[in-house]
């Protein structure tokens, strides 16, 4: 078996680090070709990194990696390899698209490998048949069970007939039956394609028993290689698990002991937890379906089942976190009441993922919880000291949990969960991803709590050897409890040699009942024309691959009503509010008069104000302090003060002075008001002269004619609404694309960029196209709104506007892609886009203040952004009546921005993970 002459991959002195953490430490290994090769070891020892380096999805830091007889540092070789290597990343369906159906997912991958429609259809049909997924091609990937997701993931990996199949923990979190089916499937595929090499990482030692060749890893190093039999004989161990522990370095093994669970004593038949008919529905999906069990005081009760079968939901209902849709949960013989603080003090809960505060130190976390449980002051320190001692946390007192290994974090979580000495502990998969030794240590603590302190423990797990240590277990599948009983009794009941087999037998019964999954379909004979066409797609730019991304992104967008609503309705609503709300038309300014003269002349003068449509008169001011008080409160925007003797003085030609007090708090309004006041005064003087002299006299020796060009009525709407189009066509599209790439990074589907022939340009452009389309649709809807609702006509060239808008949304979506290409989290993308786009667009684009008045840094900031150019186009073609001939330089600038953003994003985006 291992006698294959050449190796499929070879590493020499490879070292890989993530910041301070070393993942691979000077690793050299040859992985044999044409067989099932496995990497075994717990989480975090470097298995995934090693696989990613072999597949070419991660950049090599130091050392040499050869795969498929070529150097993986060589770009040309990597490009060739995309068609020959298939990589399935860790995590259930991590590189699948949850809203796309099974068929659409496969179709997407097939397109990435350049297959034409006929070939795609044939291959997909074949793979679906082989994996038993054929009956439900239209089911969205997100709604599949863990096992089915992994089968689909496998189909996607096999769509291009790879020579090397790399599987990273493909069965973690999958139920035993699905696991078994998965491996059978691999076996059948290998029988069909004997030349294909498979490299698998796994944490399940029982699976690894069946592999041809193994490399055991610990702490970034390979500690042993050989066939399972060789490893076992080398350590003279019966099982691979025992062999692995024996292979570990001395200090890790020290203190490790075989776990023995002492029998329970002092049973009193009292129940700590009771569930009867417990049901939870989310919409029309039933997550937990009439689950019933009783857990006795002091019992260790195990909960087994695959990911997504309802274990966590059941546990959350028992803690009161989730209200049950039906049925009843009882704690300590009392109906569970989520608001009962007394019950909460008697229960400790440890959720599936690490849920303590990463930003607090170990000690601070313990203290916080001690305080929140109101431990009396004198007990608090003793309890914390005791726990630090018992859980061996003394050395990491001042460390933040994020920097600690998983096993230590889990100990800390358990310490926190029991800080208040609860009578019941609910632990949701506390040992997932923890190495075997740390898991055993953890169990020693649990056994002590149960047997010495009488704590009832309700624990869920994937590991059968852990399940075997429980007093009783319950097997769960698809929301239902299949069986409850002592582990040995369950195994005996099914006449099974092991608990694992018993579970599989129960699952098979359950599946036969509801008949939702089919398996073991005969393999269709392999057609002769293997991989026709698929091998010749190393082209630099392929429209088909770009289209694969474009149509996929479009489908996802169309199926997300929230985002769609934000993209289309959001801008229209904002347009209406801004169109009406942002106005520079100052009218109806409230003012009051402090008339100390009360003469005919003063009244005549004031009449000019009260009759103006710009002003609204409020009750007069009657005392000297009134002016200031009422201006201060904001009730008045200005006040007119006429001194006593005004009338007489004026008639004498004494040029009396009238004082006007403006509220200068808002300078723009004050300036405008000042202009109005001067205008009214000039009118008054002119009228007076006319009355006195009989013919019209102007105070000014010149006549100044002001022409408000482009917007004769001088209405804000005419100038503001085209600007709002500019504003909305940048903020929303940029925000939508900004989360685009970074979301793929967070969800894991970015792997498909790393592991398939798609190029960065195809990826970026493909992802951008649907957003350009939707942003353009939004632009059209905004134009219609502006023309119909706000009655602002397009006076200039419609074509110039339409073309300009296309270039503009191309640039703005490109801006979002650019931000997305270099940030690492969605929240950073949102922040960065909001701040980087908002400040220059609102302030420096000519929307609020004209560009020609800007100076210094603001002018440069504005000019380096597409907004002011489209502002010219939008205002130009709407209000100024301009045409292409006047506006073309702006169009050129916009294309320039679109291209610059695109190429910069291409530069920042990595084709390999770092």
């Amino acid at each position, binding site marked *: 078996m291992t006698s294959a002459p050449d190796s499929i991959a070879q590493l020499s002195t490879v070292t890989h680090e993530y910041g301070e953490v070393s993942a691979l430490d000077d690793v050299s290994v040859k992985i044999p070709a044409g067989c099932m090769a496995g990497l075994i070891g717990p989480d975090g020892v470097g298995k995934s990194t090693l696989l990613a380096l072999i597949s070419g999805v991660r950049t090599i830091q130091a050392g040499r990696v050869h795969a498929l007889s070529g150097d993986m540092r060589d770009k040309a070789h990597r490009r060739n390899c995309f068609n020959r290597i298939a990589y399935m990343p860790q995590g259930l369906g991590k590189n699948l698209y949850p809203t796309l159906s099974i068929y659409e997912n496969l179709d997407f991958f097939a397109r990435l490998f350049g297959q034409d429609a006929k070939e795609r259809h044939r291959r997909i049909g074949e793979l679906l048949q082989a994996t038993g997924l054929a009956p439900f091609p239209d089911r969205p990937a997100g709604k599949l069970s863990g096992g089915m997701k992994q089968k689909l993931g496998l189909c996607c990996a096999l769509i291009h007939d790879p020579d090397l199949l790399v599987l990273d923990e493909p069965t973690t979190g999958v139920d035993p039956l699905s696991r078994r089916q998965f491996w059978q499937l691999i076996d059948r595929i290998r029988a069909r394609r004997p030349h294909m090499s498979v490299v698998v990482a796994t944490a399940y030692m029982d699976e690894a028993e069946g592999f041809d060749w193994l490399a055991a890893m610990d702490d970034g190093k390979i500690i042993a290689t050989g066939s399972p039999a060789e490893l076992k004989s080398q350590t003279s161990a019966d099982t691979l698990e025992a062999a692995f522990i024996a292979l570990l370095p001395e200090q890790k093994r020290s203190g490790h002991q075989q776990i023995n669970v002492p029998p329970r004593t002092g049973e009193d038949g009292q129940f700590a937890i009771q569930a009867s008919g417990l049901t939870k529905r989310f919409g029309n999906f039933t997550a937990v379906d009439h689950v019933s069990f009783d857990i006795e005081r002091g019992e260790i009760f195990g909960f087994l089942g695959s990911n997504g079968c309802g274990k966590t939901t059941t546990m959350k209902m028992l803690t009161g976190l989730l209200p049950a849709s039906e049925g009843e949960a009882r704690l300590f013989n009392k109906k569970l009441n989520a608001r009962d603080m007394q019950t909460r003090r008697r229960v400790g809960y440890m959720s599936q993922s690490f849920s303590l505060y990463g930003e607090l130190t170990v000690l601070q976390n313990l203290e916080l919880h001690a305080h929140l449980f109101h431990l009396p002051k004198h007990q608090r320190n003793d309890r914390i000291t005791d726990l630090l001692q018992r859980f061996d946390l003394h050395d990491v007192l001042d460390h933040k949990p994020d920097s600690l290994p998983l096993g230590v974090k889990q100990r800390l979580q358990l310490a926190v969960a029991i800080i208040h000495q609860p009578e019941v502990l609910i632990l949701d998969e506390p040992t997932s991803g923890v190495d075997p030794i740390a898991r055993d240590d953890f169990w020693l603590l649990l056994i002590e709590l149960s047997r010495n302190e009488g704590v009832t423990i309700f624990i869920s797990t994937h590991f059968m050897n852990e399940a075997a240590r429980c007093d009783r277990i319950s097997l769960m599948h698809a929301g239902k409890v299949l069986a409850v009983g002592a582990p040995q009794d369950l195994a005996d009941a099914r006449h099974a040699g092991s608990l694992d087999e018993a579970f599989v037998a129960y699952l098979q019964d359950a599946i036969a009942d509801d008949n939702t999954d089919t398996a073991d379909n005969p393999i269709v004979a392999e057609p002769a024309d293997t991989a026709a066409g698929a091998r010749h797609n190393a082209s630099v730019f392929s429209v088909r691959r770009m289209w694969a991304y474009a149509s996929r992104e479009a489908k996802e967008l169309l199926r997300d009503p929230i985002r769609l609503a934000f993209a289309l309705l959001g801008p229209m*609503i904002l347009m209406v509010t801004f169109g009406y709300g942002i106005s520079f038309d100052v009218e109806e300014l409230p003012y009051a008069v402090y008339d100390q003269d009360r003469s005919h002349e003063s009244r005549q003068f004031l009449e000019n104000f009260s009759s103006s449509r710009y002003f609204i008169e409020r009750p007069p001011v009657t005392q000297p302090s009134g002016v200031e008080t009422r201006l201060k409160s904001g009730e008045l925007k200005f006040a007119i003060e006429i001194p006593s003797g005004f009338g007489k003085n*004026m008639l004498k030609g004494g040029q009396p002075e*009238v004082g006007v007090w*403006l509220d200068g708090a808002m300078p723009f309004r004050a300036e405008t008001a000042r202009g109005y006041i001067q205008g009214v005064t000039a009118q008054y003087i002119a009228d*007076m002269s006319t009355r006195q002299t009989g013919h019209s006299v102007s105070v000014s020796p010149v006549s100044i004619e002001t*022409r408000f060009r482009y917007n004769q009525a001088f209405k804000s709407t005419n100038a503001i609404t085209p600007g709002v189009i500019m504003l909305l066509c940048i903020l929303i599209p940029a925000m939508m694309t900004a989360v685009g790439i970074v979301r793929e990074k967070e969800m894991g589907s970015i792997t498909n960029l790393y592991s398939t022939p798609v190029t960065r340009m195809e990826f970026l452009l493909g992802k951008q196209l649907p957003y350009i389309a939707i942003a353009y649709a939004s632009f059209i809807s905004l134009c219609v709104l502006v023309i119909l609702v706000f009655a602002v006509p397009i006076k200039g060239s419609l074509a110039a506007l339409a073309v300009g808008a296309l270039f503009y949304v191309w640039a703005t979506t490109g801006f979002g892609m650019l931000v997305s290409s270099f940030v690492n989290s969605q929240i950073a993308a*949102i922040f960065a886009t*909001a701040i980087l786009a908002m400040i220059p667009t609102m302030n420096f684009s000519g929307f609020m203040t004209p560009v020609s008045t800007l100076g210094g840094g603001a002018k440069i900031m504005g000019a380096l952004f597409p907004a002011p150019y489209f502002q010219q186009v939008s205002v130009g073609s709407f209000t*100024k009546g301009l045409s292409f001939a006047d506006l073309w330089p702006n169009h050129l600038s916009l294309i320039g921005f679109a291209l610059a953003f695109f190429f910069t994003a291409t530069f920042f985006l990595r084709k390999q993970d770092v």
Partner: protein
Amino acid sequence: MLRRLGNIFRLGVKELRSVLADPVLAILLVWTFTFAIYEVAQNAKMEISNASVAIVDEDRSKLSRRIQDAFLPPYFKPAVEIPGTDIDQSMDTGKFIFVIEIPPDFEADLLSSRTPEIQVNIDATAMSVAGTGASYIQTIITRETLDFMNARGSALNPPLNVVVRASFNPNLNSTWFMAVMQIVNNVTVLAMILTGAALIREREHGTIEHLLVMPVTSAEIMISKVWANGLVIVVAAALSLTFVVQGLLQVPIAGSKLLFIAGAAIYLFSITSLGILLATMTSSMPQFGLLAIPVFVVMELLSGGTTPMESMPAWLQTIMQASPSTHYVSFSQAVLYRGAWIDIVWPQMVTMAVIGCVFFAVALIRFRRTIVSFS
């Protein structure tokens, strides 16, 4: 009761630790309260400042040159002389906002009392400066001609003198206005995003669930978030007001800073509650981002802090009364510029508190229900 206060205090301290432990947030806080405020206040002016003027001088007289020279910084850029044929093109491209045309024989006509006509072309798409600029230019031209004629002893005297003085901001310097309004705006954005994102982060990390199985109530968790995040922002705003606005930008503050901070605290209660409320309505960070942005953009642009409240249609003014930002803007303007004391601004303070209570109550109802079902 004492226990509850203890919980609120402990959880708040925890919250403070997480805010201060996140370098990105810390940098963002510093950036928005220093550079962002300074740059916008200095450069985005709503007054006549640096306005671009061109003159088509067909008279070429002493007076026409005198007018040309009268456009002075900081209000205007030096007037550029252009040929009459360039008017359309230079205004179309937005190169000049104002173009003044002085006709031939302008000075001669004036001296022979024939009231010559000067044309002022204004780009009326530049809404913020077109109107005020027009009246500035009128004043300048009138003043220059009058002075010119006075020098020759041939001017008329107006029968009365209207002296317009601006209270609170005598030079109508918009930096004063923008600086303070930027603080108000940034307080809104940061408080909303900080509190909402803190809740979503706790939800995504599962820590909120952990709290909910302990003897801690939802109200305690929410109050602790409100006080801790509010405190961070009040301190940042107070520092920014003192060092950036008063110090760097030299803006005088008329009223009591203490009163302003008290009002800011009430406002932050309402905004942080709104942040929590928005977080309970979304299931993920990107959705929260998409929801928060339109909310704060509207709250910012229509609060009366950007364009005058009175210019909005009545129905919109009514709607905006529900936004605490509207009351906070009018509160801040009254206190900071006009030196108003509590006897004048108490109605705004009470309104903000009431709106805050409504947000808080709705968020509390949704809190427990949504926290778990979304995770």
